[in-house]
């Protein structure tokens, strides 16, 4: 086994980690914003809002992310109005931005479904109690509905984030030299696909392991009430009020 080759490959791929993280971060950040909007639209009670979100989810959940990425990167630039738009063109001619846009649009579809389910699962009785104590709709949402829904959404949300980590590898098909792109280049240069892909795979594994651990910790910290009753409950630190 060529230990030096593994080490140097690891190192080269790791140098692309910041770029991977950048795509990942902005993808899920914008995705969260869009998902929040979609969830709000869906819950707003307007029929048109519901139809729009349903169509959105149908399209972006129903087709492969790779197809969406290609269509956004290669497809949209076919339109003159895109090429002449001072806002759209700078975004859509840049493969990096295109990847982020595709990821955000795609994950938003899944996340809006996760949030919708979580909101529906909040026990009605607890919302009624908030009403009966005179809380306004906004206070009710902030103090009761949202904190409970967030906790309910967390497990599915963390899975979606992990899927997004892996999805960043698709950026390589539009020429981005993130971890996967870098690995492919090394592979082309060296003809040693097994070693190179193993290195990349291990790094993705470790990355997702950390993300999963982070979410597990957040989940644990936020749900003392869902664990078995401890004997030393006096010492349970109450969850910070904002959550």
């Amino acid at each position, binding site marked *: 086994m060529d230990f030096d080759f593994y080490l140097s490959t690891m190192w080269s791929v790791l140098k692309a980690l910041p770029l991977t993280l950048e795509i990942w971060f902005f993808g899920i950040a914008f995705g969260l914003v869009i998902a929040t909007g979609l969830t709000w639209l869906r819950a707003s009670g307007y029929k048109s809002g519901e139809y729009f979100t349903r169509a959105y989810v149908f399209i972006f959940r129903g087709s492969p992310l790779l197809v969406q990425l290609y269509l956004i990167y290669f497809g949209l630039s076919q339109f003159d109005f895109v090429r002449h738009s001072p806002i759209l063109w700078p975004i859509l001619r840049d493969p990096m931005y295109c990847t982020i846009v595709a990821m955000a649009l795609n994950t938003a579809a899944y996340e809006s479904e996760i949030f919708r389910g979580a909101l529906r699962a909040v026990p009605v*009785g*607890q919302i009624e*109690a908030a009403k*009966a104590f*005179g809380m306004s709709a906004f*206070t009710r949402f902030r103090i009761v509905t949202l904190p409970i829904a967030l*906790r309910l959404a967390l497990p599915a949300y963390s899975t979606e984030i992990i899927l997004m980590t892996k999805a960043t590898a698709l950026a390589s098909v539009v020429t981005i030299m993130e971890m996967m792109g870098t690995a492919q280049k090394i592979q082309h240069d060296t003809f040693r696909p097994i070693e190179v892909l193993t290195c990349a795979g291990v790094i993705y594994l470790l990355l997702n392991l950390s993300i999963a651990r982070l979410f597990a910790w957040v989940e644990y910290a936020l749900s003392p*009430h869902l664990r078995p009753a401890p004997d030393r*409950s006096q010492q349970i630190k109450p969850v910070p009020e904002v959550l």
Partner: protein
Amino acid sequence: MSASPAAAANAEPSPDAMAAISVKDMRKCFGDHEVLKGISLEAHKGDVISILGSSGSGKSTLLRCINLLETPDSGEVRVGGELIRMKQGQGGHQTPADIRQVERIRADLAMVFQSFNLWSHMTVLENLVAAPVHVQKRPRAECLEQAEALLKRVGIWERRNYYPPHMSGGQQQRAAIARALAMNPKVMLFDEPTSALDPELVGEVLRVMRSLAEEGRTMLVVTHEMGFARDVSSKVMFLHKGEVDSLGEPKEMFARPPTQQFKQFITNFNK
């Protein structure tokens, strides 16, 4: 500005102005099922009114229409003389005219639910301070102090940092009563507060409610506890199929049931 109609209602020298809570001719349908068929009710300060009735007679619906968890189809609710203003919405159904007013009045009408409905992600202490801090905008420190005193009173101060799922039903219901008390409510609404409890836990909750009655709280209590209705309440109201079948002084009602329906109801219970 929005306070002026309320002030006018308060100033009215009607007999209702004396009532802590008054309900006039309340009606409510679910679809074509008429659940409340014109119910009137008046509670003065310190009154404890037990509301009895068989399942489906509309007891919960009555309480929920009083604090607008359900919107009554017609009828008036006054709290401390102040009329809850309604307006005609679309489809002929009325809706609250001013949701702020409703929220303000709800804060004066603390409710205790059959299934407790404590906020599960908050500790008991947080449950007690949430509404006083966020609705009544009282200083947190003062609310915490009051909350601890209330928890001592209902006997679960040791559990103040517990989360609701970690407590027995009786403890949860006492916490829920303390949460209601923390609002310094004018009237307390109880919807079958002991019905979800194991028999051996009913007593501890009834003891707390009895002590509230003794200190002169105004309470509307939907219950199946005949002992409480007979010995603690100042009035008993028996609902039958959405109507007030009988209403009276408890000892009298139980000794000489005024209607055949009520007689049957209590004999079924004693069986």
